């Protein structure tokens, strides 16, 4: 296939699909970050609750103290996706 350049008739179509793919990949990265952090927090909650109990403490609402309120409100995640899209169009520093 020949090189696609702005003069190519299919440039607009290729550009649109390319940008959609990059946006989707950025969203996948942001979601993976969230899943990774949520998982780590959950892991910590389980360990801390168990160890605290062995030491004679009862931890109440373990899942509450591990929740990052930013993520819990979903705004942080949405902002992350929006920021990823903005970064797509911003030149690398």
């Amino acid at each position: 296939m020949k090189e696609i350049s702005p003069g190519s008739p299919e440039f607009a179509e290729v550009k649109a699909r390319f940008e959609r793919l990059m946006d989707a990949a950025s969203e996948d990265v942001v979601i993976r970050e969230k899943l990774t952090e949520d998982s780590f927090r959950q892991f910590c909650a389980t360990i801390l609750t168990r160890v605290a109990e062995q030491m004679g403490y009862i931890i109440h609402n373990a899942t509450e103290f591990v929740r990052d309120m930013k993520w819990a409100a979903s705004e942080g995640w949405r902002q992350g996706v929006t920021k990823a899209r903005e970064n797509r169009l911003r030149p690398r520093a």
Partner: protein
Amino acid sequence: MRYLTDFRRLNMADLIASLMGALRKQNPAITAPDADKLQRQLENEIAKQQPPTIAFIGLTGVGKTSTVNTLFNHDLPVSHTRPCTTLPTPVSGELYEFTGAKGDLIVYDMPGLGEDEDTDEKYYAMYRDILPRVDVAVWVINVPNRQVAPIQQAIRRLRAELGDAQVNKIVVAASMADRIEPYNWVPGANIPSKEQDEHLEDYLSSISERIAKVLTLRSGGIVAYSNTKRYQLERLMRQIVESAPPERAWLFGEVADVADVRELIDPRFLQYIEQASLPPRR
């Protein structure tokens, strides 16, 4: 141009500090020495976690080893493997500890179904044995193979014998997306052509409909990806993390090292996009 968000790895030290702060605030009875002890225990538990364990199932040649490299090792020229001695060796297939760019991974490389009835039965017994030992299993078929009946049957049997929790670890993915007709991958942009996109959509629709009868598909459906073109690798990695047990998923985040698709995009194409995205001059 960035065009793709860079994955931010966990800042564990900061996270642990903030968790301990929140814990003490909500549980003021915990003394300072006890809080220190709690934190040390937590850090010990983190350090002694077994590496993430993943099974790749598929016929020879579908790209299982390449997939391990492009997801966990993309900066290293060769994969460093050694026999795994900490887990039982499967009857067939290969088990190895893999040292990727960011950390260790335990990989079960297992043969796929559909070549012979007798070996299929033997391989099925292996899946039944291995599935409870892994965090995630990725079942790979290669585009444009549409023979999913053996996979359907195996998943149905595994669900009946092992239960939903084990089967829900399975991610089905289609490798070699760039090899779909009419073989005219767009150079420069490094994306499928419009015709390839349409054929991929049709292909994925066909196999998804059948796989969905036996397995709940991940968000985004079955991923068609390419190791050679680094196409849709972030989607596949996301589905792997989604499928892992909730308290183990973070380990995949730690060792993931997904090959960067941007390295295969022609800088001139990126310049064209940049220029086309600028507002028109007055």
